[in-house]
């Protein structure tokens, strides 16, 4: 993932080292999808010179003739013991695809296709394998976390495809660099950070209004207007104690980050941390949680973790919330470019209708998609975000392109007004992990393709 600055010379070297990580991540993503009896289906691999941009989810029962397991990066048939013992999968490379597009598009489809019979057998193996690998993955996490020093790169690679819920608090703290990778120092540092947060709250929040500037009063007022409106569809967030916690975290963060201060939408960004760190102390589903079951010390520790993790997360997006939000504007522009390269017809349609990406994608970047998907999927999405680390802003562009193009067919039928409204209320209410995994794996493929060979995709 950290190969975005490749230049010609070391591209080969990087590409080969990357392919190892790519294979395992890609396979894991695939497994996530297949685990629920879905497979990747390349629909319309090539069409003229256009890019193979369509990946559909197909139920297992559907005919499989066009199905292909596709990895954009590796250049050969490969065998990956991690994938499934000794088994080989036909992989087409983008170079091959590119070459074929000059000759015969339809032959490339059959070339990369396994026989229907073989395919269904493979799938049966995969879905059985997916259950088996759950415990294998758990073992890997446990092993990775048990060392004296956690190797972050390895943890990132594992976490990218999803973290087991009960390990999430630990893993997130590590990925964000809030907890040190050295386990001997961990407890001490967390204790110190939590005390430091308490001091900040006492110094900035627990003071009378007359000691605040007008601007600070304004900010506090805005925060208190927004806290009751934070994830209102999850009843847990309606509890007064939760809203008080949110207010303390947000105000303290805003005061300590004067370049941006509080910006609406940052309230949404705290919520994944709140549910993840509270999950260490409360059992069952979020809907049954009550803050009354927690001691003030516990609440304060959880708040501190949320505060520091929010700070770490936003450090990698320092200009997303400053005046005129240049960081977001830049990414919205990039998104438009990437979408244009991947799906020219949709891109042209949107342009012809006068639709601007800012009209819908601004909120996506501002709230990191929290507003667009069901809340119970957000923590899974964030596993990938946090695994990306500093590369996250760049990778968001690909996730959002993939998210947008999930509705490519629908969008092409809509005119301006319907399109804006459709994009502002995308039908994700019924989404499960499957749809989310598809968005992520597609994003991963596009990101890899574009970053390895940006030039031949242009125009």
């Amino acid at each position, binding site marked *: 993932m950290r190969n975005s600055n490749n230049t010609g010379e070391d591209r080969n070297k990087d590409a080969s080292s990357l392919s190892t990580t790519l294979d395992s991540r890609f396979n894991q993503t695939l497994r996530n999808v297949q685990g629920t009896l879905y497979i990747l289906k390349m629909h319309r691999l090539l069409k003229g010179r256009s890019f193979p941009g369509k990946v559909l989810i197909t139920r297992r029962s559907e005919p499989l003739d066009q199905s292909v397991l596709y990895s954009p990066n590796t250049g050969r048939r490969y065998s990956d013991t991690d994938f499934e013992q000794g088994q080989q999968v036909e992989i087409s490379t983008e170079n091959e695809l590119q070459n074929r597009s000059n000759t015969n598009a339809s032959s490339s489809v059959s070339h990369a296709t396994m026989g229907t019979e073989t395919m269904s057998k493979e799938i049966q193996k995969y879905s059985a394998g997916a259950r088996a690998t759950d415990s294998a993955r758990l073992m890997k996490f446990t092993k990775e976390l048990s060392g004296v020093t956690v190797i972050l790169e390895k943890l990132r690679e594992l976490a990218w495809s999803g973290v087991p819920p009960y390990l999430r608090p630990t893993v997130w703290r590590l990925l964000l660099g809030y907890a040190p990778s050295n386990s001997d120092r961990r407890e001490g540092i967390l204790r110190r950070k939590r005390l430091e947060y308490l001091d900040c709250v006492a110094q900035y929040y627990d003071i009378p209004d007359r000691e605040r500037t007008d601007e600070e009063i304004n900010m506090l*007022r805005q925060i208190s207007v927004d806290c009751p409106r934070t994830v*209102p569809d999850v009843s847990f967030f309606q509890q007064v104690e939760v809203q008080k916690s949110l207010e303390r975290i947000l105000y303290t963060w805003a005061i300590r980050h004067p370049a941006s201060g509080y910006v*609406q939408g940052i309230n949404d960004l705290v919520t994944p941390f709140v549910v993840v760190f509270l999950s260490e102390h409360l059992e069952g589903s979020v809907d049954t949680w009550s803050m009354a079951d927690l001691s003030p010390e516990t609440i304060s520790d959880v708040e501190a973790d949320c505060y520091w993790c929010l700070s770490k997360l936003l450090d990698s997006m320092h200009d997303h919330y400053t005046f005129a939000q240049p960081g977001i504007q830049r990414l919205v522009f990039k998104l438009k470019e990437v979408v244009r390269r991947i799906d020219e017809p949709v891109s042209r349609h949107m342009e*012809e209708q006068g639709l601007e990406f*800012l009209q819908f994608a*601004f909120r996506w970047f501002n709230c990191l998609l929290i507003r667009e998907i069901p809340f119970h999927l957000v923590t899974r999405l964030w596993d990938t975000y946090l695994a990306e680390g500093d590369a996250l802003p760049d990778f968001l562009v690909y996730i959002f392109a993939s998210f947008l193009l999930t509705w490519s067919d629908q969008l092409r039928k809509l*005119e301006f007004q319907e399109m804006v*409204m459709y994009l502002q209320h995308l039908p994700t209410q019924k989404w499960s992990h499957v749809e989310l995994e598809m968005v992520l794996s597609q994003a991963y493929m596009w990101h890899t393709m574009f970053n390895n060979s940006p030039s031949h995709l242009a125009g």
Partner: protein
Amino acid sequence: MGAYRADDDYDYLFKVVLIGDSGVGKSNLLSRFTRNEFSLESKSTIGVEFATRSIRVDDKVVKAQIWDTAGQERYRAITSAYYRGAVGALLVYDVTRHVTFENVERWLKELRDHTDASIVIMLVGNKADLRHLRAVSTEDATAFAEKENTFFMETSALESMNVENAFTEVLTQIHRVVSRKALEANDDPATLPKGQTINVGSKDDVSAVKKSGCCST
């Protein structure tokens, strides 16, 4: 911008913006007007949101394309881009929070900086249902509206009071302005060819469009 659908038939398309401080109830006024919905726990608006509704004004069908903007100052740079081409505005404050009324002057300036002089502006004092919490008197607001030459109404998105009236009044006034402009241009509005843009002001924004599928900002 091809054909418009038959069930979306209208004579005029007017772009209207909703502005005012955060939390005054802009999004709820919009959802009340377009979907007859109200929510005590609505989410804050990030950037802009958008909804439409068609109503009958005189003997014409007028479609309102309403842009709901984020109230926080930080978003001003983003949202003011959407003022462009607006022919109507509802400038909303909260009758229970005086500071939101004090800020109306700033919003007005913002609006006038970015739109044509002939824009129809309605000052809206929302949350009039919270009678025991009232902090801005009707008299003060009326006086301000008179001074600034805007229309004025008190509403409650919660009780559905005056919401319909406020929007309808703005759309009716816009229709009046548009018809007058068309007459001034020595053009009978009734005989304008379909799809022709009526320039409300000097700018050639596609803001009031007669019977066309066009609707870009």
